[in-house]
């Protein structure tokens, strides 16, 4: 059953095990080109999660940065790289120790909003997710982080 779903595209990326309901949000932050071929499955039954969402992107191999972005809102997600109908690479998304450029600082008075510099955060807790701005030292919690994805 699972094999069928994952391998249903010829070449591309399948993001599996997205917490149910987060699929559209993942799609939003991926910010894929308008002409991308995308399949979304919502509320698929899953042994691991009960219910999950799945996204399949035809023809596109996701970069590491994009994968890290997913980890911030869907930490359970797995990324499968598909070639010739087969899974050639399977990776778990993981929140890195440092996050550069994916999120903007929630502090409106932070220097990163005024200078040409990539926002940079230290991950001070992965569960629950908590980030500290490298520049202004303000911390951001999960809920705020989701609102500040670039």
């Amino acid at each position, binding site marked *: 059953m699972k094999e069928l779903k994952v391998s249903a595209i010829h070449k591309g990326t399948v993001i599996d095990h997205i917490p149910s309901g987060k699929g559209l949000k993942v799609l939003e932050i991926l910010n894929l080109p308008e002409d991308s071929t995308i399949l979304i499955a919502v509320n698929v039954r899953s042994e691991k999660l009960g219910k999950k969402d799945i996204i399949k992107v035809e023809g596109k191999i996701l970069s590491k940065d994009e994968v890290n972005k997913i980890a911030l809102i869907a930490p359970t997600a797995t990324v499968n790289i598909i070639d010739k109908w087969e899974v050639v690479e399977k990776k778990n998304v993981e929140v890195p120790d440092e996050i550069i450029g994916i999120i903007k600082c929630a502090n409106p*008075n*932070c220097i990163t909003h005024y200078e040409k*510099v990539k926002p940079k955060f230290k991950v001070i807790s992965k569960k629950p997710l908590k980030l500290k701005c490298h520049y202004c030292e303000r911390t951001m919690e999960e809920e705020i982080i989701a609102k500040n994805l670039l």
Partner: protein
Amino acid sequence: MRFQDVISINDFEKDDIEYVLKTAELLERELKEKGTLQYAKGKVLATLFFEPSTRTRLSFESAMHRLGGSVIGFAEASATSVKKGESLMDTIRTVENYADVIVIRHPKEGAARLAAEVAKIPVINAGDGANQHPTQTLLDLYTIKKEFGKIDGLKIALLGDLKYGRTVHSLAKALSYYNVKLYFVAPPGLEMPRHIVEEISDKVDIVETSNLESVIPEIDVLYATRIQKERFPDPAEYNKIKGSYRVDLKILEGAKETLKIMHPLPRVDEISYEVDKTRYSAYFRQVWSGVPVRMALLGIVLGVIE
């Protein structure tokens, strides 16, 4: 050299703090013997004050002169090309050609960290928005150490707006390295932020209260700060609170004889003028502490003092 820049008190381990305090002490002694010193002879300090803070700027300039160095800089951004829209990064890249060390004060949080990343020369943070003012914290610690000969074992109360007060946040954090008991005395609504209390509560004993009178007899240090009127939506509410946090002779009747009162200054009416002449006041000596402490920091980052 243990550190190249002075950006945040969070970058300092206890050893680093002790090293700065010790260096400041030695410099102060030497300064008293010899007058001006020559450690920074031929070195130039650039003070980049993107917002005015005359006291802090004068303190750094005095420190550099007493080390035998010289000073260039500006006291407000409107007098510079910043006004024409120059970025902070470009200002730093320009100024580093004229100086050996930069002291920066900037209204945006994180500006000093960014400046230090861009600059090839050392950078010292003299205040970045509501974030950090590490040299203030170090001079506060130095003052306490000078007044009592030690920091360990003291009972220290932080009084006033503990919610928004940058000074008290950093000081609380730095004091947590020592064996002290802390009293956070704040009016309702202006209490010390939870994340700071949580961060340090496993290292030091903390008492939180809104009643100054009840803690006065116990404490060795009363660190008073301003309560800013504009924090209160209702002026009547402010006026009610204002009186209860006024340090005057009456409230000091219950104090230990050895109590020392500190304040980062400027004060408004938290400490009545009649207290100035008493044995309790340490706030003007605290101002002086800024000079040896900043001399030590300048000397260390310049690499001219071991």
